[in-house]
């Protein structure tokens, strides 16, 4: 078992304080929507040829000023959220580019769970390849959990039971069984696919005959 297993920890229970990404308006707060991959990890950090070391640059432009000093108001710069393992956000989290540097940066920072009402397709997929659990919950519940997180309460996410515990309340969430299995077992999907090598061989044989214009 090599490949992605090298990087990927099996997913068990995650417990800790969750960082709500807010776009606030006075005392009325709302969750920040459309957090894109350029915000998560700006392009100047894509020049690396490694997967690790990106955590310090996570949310770089929201987190540091032009001189490289921490921006005080940003959630991950506040003491109790510095070691957050969970992020709470608004709609369409991870929209934009296919860069896997985004989940790599989140993971390297220590984030293992992202809770949002919706995710962008490619980002969502990339999370599972890196041991990050993206959870879809309604906006209303996310606001409720955020209120609790803002008071400094801890959150517990159990993937096996598909349950979030927060403030003596329980919220259940849906997840596709294959994605769940993938995270729980820390599977090497390339190894898995290569077990079906005979199916790939026979597809190729057929395709060479039936769709020869795709053969190079």
């Amino acid at each position, binding site marked *: 078992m090599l490949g992605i297993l090298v990087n990927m920890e099996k997913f068990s229970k995650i417990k800790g304080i969750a960082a709500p990404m807010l776009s606030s308006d006075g005392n009325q707060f709302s969750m920040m929507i459309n957090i894109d991959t350029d915000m998560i990890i700006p392009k100047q950090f894509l*020049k690396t040829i490694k997967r690790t070391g990106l955590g310090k640059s996570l949310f770089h432009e929201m987190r540091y000023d032009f001189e490289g000093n921490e921006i005080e108001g940003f959630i991950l710069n506040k003491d109790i959220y510095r070691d957050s393992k969970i992020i709470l956000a608004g709609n369409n989290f991870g929209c934009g580019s296919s860069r896997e540097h985004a989940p790599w940066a989140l993971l390297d920072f220590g984030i293992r769970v992202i809770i949002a009402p919706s995710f962008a*397709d490619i980002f969502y997929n990339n999370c599972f390849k890196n041991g990050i659990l993206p959870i879809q919950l309604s906006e209303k519940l996310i606001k409720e959990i955020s209120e609790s997180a803002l008071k400094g309460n801890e959150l517990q996410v159990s993937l096996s039971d598909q349950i979030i515990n927060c403030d003596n309340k329980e919220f259940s969430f849906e997840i596709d069984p294959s994605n769940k299995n993938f995270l729980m077992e820390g599977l090497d*999907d390339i190894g898995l696919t290569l077990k079906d090598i005979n199916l790939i061989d026979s597809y190729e044989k057929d395709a060479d005959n039936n769709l020869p214009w795709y053969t190079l």
Partner: protein
Amino acid sequence: MTEAKTIYDKIWDAHLVADKDNYSLLYIDRHLIHEVTSPQAFEGLRMAGRNVRHPDKTLAVADHNVPTTDRSVEIEDEESKIQIEALKNNCAEFGINFIDMSDIRQGIVHIIGPEQGFTLPGSTIVCGDSHTSTHGAFGALAHGIGTSEVEHVLASQTLIQKKAKNFKVEIVGALTDSISAKDLALSVIGAIGTAGGTGYVIEYMGNAVESLSMEGRMTLCNLTIEAGARAGLIAPDQKTFDYLKDRPLAPKGDIWDKAVSYWKTLPSDPGAHYDNSIKIDIDNLSPLVTWGTSPEDVIDIDGNIPKPEDIEDEAKKNAIRRSLDYMGLEAGEPIKGTKIDKVFIGSCTNGRIEDLRAAASIVSQNKVSDHVNAIVVPGSGLVKAQAENEGLDKIFIEAGFEWREPGCSMCLAMNADKLLPNERCASTSNRNFEGRQGRGGRTHLVSPKMAAAAAIAGCLADVRDFS
């Protein structure tokens, strides 16, 4: 009777290697790679002692990180140089075709695929870049993937997938001189929002789509990802075949003829099921421009910047406030006349020959405004050569544009081409995200003609005033 299928259903079925309990294994005909999202995939292969199953089905080019200035001098940026070298070495090690920076075919990965005839109707195409949706213009199922998936494709020539739903986007009406494929695409994103396509493959149809050139269709499909859809598709027709015939990697002779008869069976069957659909009429469409930091922040060039208080949804209202603040704009003001500092014409959205011709037609006999710095970055070496043959380079240079070497350039600003904080840019690229073109930079997405008009006027301008 067999079930009526969409073009997506047909391509999916023809590429199914295995249907597992919770996922499907899909065969990948064509794989494009570039320097930014591939090094970790090759590293993964090496660590696992795996090989590339079909080196001939992958084509590599460096584009994201390359300088657009003089190619004969060494790359200054050490990290960029290492990344580009790594791609070259990985390709040599695994026997993958690599188009070198000195090669005239070098260019943006989504521009060179079609140019070389690597992109074919009915094929499956992936690349570690979200704008892979571009290739859908040829009736190919094409989408972006992450680096782990790049590794998966290299090792197995397959991809683990779940089938998406079908979304029909019908665009009707007549194109005019001032309305381009970019405006069509922006109007779709404006209509359904950046998450409107999530979970879907979009099929574009309608007379406006049919009347687009292949270049225009690529622009439309390119921006599909900005509407959140996995891929965009346009059924292949005679224009598609004419574009591809005799391209270096396209099938030849007898196989070409057979391929064309097969491709003619790809369009969706009458009565095929769509899970969602919209119809857009472009007859009264004005040229469009984005005002904010999401591609859905679209308004008419003669429109006004939205006011947060007019929006009910709390999260959207706050997003608008944040965008206005970032963009340095006043709610309720007209967008036209907003002063700009830079103009960027290029990218996989609008870096093809037709885009350069369109921009040049506005630039001709005019001068770039004194305070504006404007650059043209052709999408590939072949586009550049063609443009130079037609004398477009002279038109741009005489007007005061810089004429650059091909690459992604200021679309994502990984190289030296970028906006400085608070600089405002009219750009033909695809993303206006915060910091996309440089930290603190302010991007307005427009068509090539609109970008040209802005360069001359020195502010966001209406191309209709220039004809």
